[in-house]
């Protein structure tokens, strides 16, 4: 982990984001979408973030960029606390790629104009031809033909649209990109191509990624380290290999088991009993958030909420049983 040697590019501490929910029947309640998450991301590192939908991973990604204002904790970027400052100067350094490319590209704008907005923001004084070359260059960077610039988003396939989403993020020459489920909406064969593109760009441009996905097999392909989130908390954080081959948290193991078996033999071996899918956990008032679904829960799990602690060097896990299981 030489990448982790110097000061991290991004450091978040006890970041919180709460939402107030008004419900006619049950009155006001607080949804703790992100509840005290701390982590570092080193320069040129890819940190993967996995968890099921609703666990707060997207909220965390947006809170880091202050697209949604955090309710507590701090964000330090490149040595400076950016939790409360005006984000404008940082917008060109920190970018985001969204999940569904067809949703986030303006259907009335040509591809060239979509990318040009970023180019104009970064370099407003370019001549016409310089500007055009810049746009073509960006399209080339993401392996799209220059004539795409004159087309509309609906004329492109899902994979091509996602390339435009990436080119748009790159237009301001950022160093850090939050990739929020960038391949989940794509066909399998396009998924592989986009992952390859992102890896290639990281190498060429020295980018740092926060890569968010619900699919552990995708995250693993991309990431140096992986953080596993469950109901607003980080439950495990370790090197990608360790998370996949030596998962410490019961929830991480459940996530790995949820991936469809690669062949019929494995599938048949695996058809054993599972926890009742009816369980609708919600966040318990006290204790571990996973205790109601956890197959190894002991009485203490219903009382004490475990903190993220080290189980081996560089491997952190929030479980009352720690590494003892």
């Amino acid at each position: 982990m030489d990448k982790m040697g110097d000061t991290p590019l991004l450091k978040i501490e006890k970041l919180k984001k709460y939402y107030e929910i008004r419900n006619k029947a049950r009155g006001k309640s607080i949804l703790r979408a992100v509840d005290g998450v701390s982590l570092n991301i080193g320069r040129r590192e890819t940190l993967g973030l996995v968890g099921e939908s609703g666990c707060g991973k997207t909220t965390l990604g947006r809170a880091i960029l202050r697209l949604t204002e955090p309710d507590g904790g701090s964000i330090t970027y490149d040595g400076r606390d950016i939790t409360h400052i005006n984000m404008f100067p940082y917008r060109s350094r920190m970018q985001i790629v969204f999940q569904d490319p067809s949703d986030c590209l303006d259907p009335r704008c040509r591809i060239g104009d979509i990318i040009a907005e970023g180019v104009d923001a970064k370099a407003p004084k370019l001549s016409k031809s310089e500007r055009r070359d810049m746009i073509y260059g960006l399209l080339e960077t993401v392996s799209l033909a220059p004539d795409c610039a004159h087309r509309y988003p609906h004329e492109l396939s899902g994979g091509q649209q996602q390339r435009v989403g990436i080119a748009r993020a790159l237009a301001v020459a950022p160093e850090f990109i939050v990739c929020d489920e960038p391949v989940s909406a794509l066909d399998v064969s396009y998924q592989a191509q986009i992952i390859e593109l992102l890896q290639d760009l990281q190498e060429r441009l020295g980018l740092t990624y926060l890569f968010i996905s619900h699919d552990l097999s995708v995250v693993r392909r991309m990431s140096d380290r992986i953080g596993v989130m469950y109901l607003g908390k980080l439950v495990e954080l370790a090197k990608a290999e360790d998370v996949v081959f030596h998962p410490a948290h019961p929830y991480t193991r459940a996530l790995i088991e949820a991936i469809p078996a690669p062949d019929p033999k494995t599938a048949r071996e695996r058809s054993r009993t599972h926890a009742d899918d009816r369980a609708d956990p919600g966040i318990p008032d006290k204790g571990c958030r996973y205790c109601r679904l956890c197959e190894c829960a002991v009485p203490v799990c219903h009382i004490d909420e475990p903190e993220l602690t080290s189980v081996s060097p560089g491997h952190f896990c929030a479980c009352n049983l720690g590494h003892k299981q």
Partner: protein
Amino acid sequence: MREDGGSEILLDVMGLDVSFQTRRGDVRAVNGISYCVRRGEAHGLVGESGGGKSVGVHAIMGLLGTSSRVNAGSALFEGRDILRLKKGELASLRGREISMIFQNPSSYLDPVFTIGSQMIETIRAHDRSISKGAARSLSEDMLWEVGIRDPERRMRQYPFELSGGMSQRVMIAIALLCKPKLLIADEPTTALDVTTQAQIIRLLKNLQSRSGMAMLYITHNFGIVAELCDRVSVICGGYIVEQGSTDDIFYGAAHPYTQALLKLIPRIDSPKNEPAPSIGGPPVDSVSLPKGCVFRKRCPFRMDICSRDFPPRINLAPYHSANCWLLELGKELPGDGQNG
């Protein structure tokens, strides 16, 4: 796993050919595909998006728009050709004998009605003699059956109040209300995350083994096929290129396209530095369908003959066949070793 002969044939699709008229010319979406689904069996239709797998099934259910045309073929359901049924006859078949679930449940549930009223309406649309109260308790039972914890409360909720996985459970419950003999599932888990996907797959498997209903499962994910299906048809560019039992396909894939798709299964245990698998090149453009084999532009083993004629169907084992010139010419497939 069932023996190869299997049970009685429930749905027999033969030579189905569907095209769409567009400004760019006729899109030949489905080109004479044949497959059959047996009673109590799960049949997988596998291929990339744009391969024609959904169109081939929607055509059978009469769900395609006016720009489409069924050029040829038949689809016998219990001996009756459903492509030639009158509108009313088809309507009484749909929902009662054959039900369907879709990829995006939230867009198939009506946003202005509660879950309960949509379920009661479904039951009463097929059988007026059932009272509202009886329909309500039937619906609640069915919601419980598909793993919903508090049916009474859910019945009063609107679709937007449900999560994606919950909506898909409701869709499945509605599809099963009339105890269909065949359930068609069109990528029902693609929009869900992996944990919910695993739950839905387990649910479908359980329901199928309990009720003995047959299932036609459309997907691009071979991992789901491994978990769920007894038999598989692989579709590429509107042609079926390989057919066989799930074991035949997984352990003896004969067509290069099938082999390529199998390599796309997301695996957690593959070495990290290995390049991400992909099938080179874009999927087939069905407007200018090439002469010869549809996969040849992307095929690593292409030969001259592949661009001249569509390869014949070669039987490899009982109920296992593939359309590839390599097999006809008796050549060993270089990539075959790792699957066998």
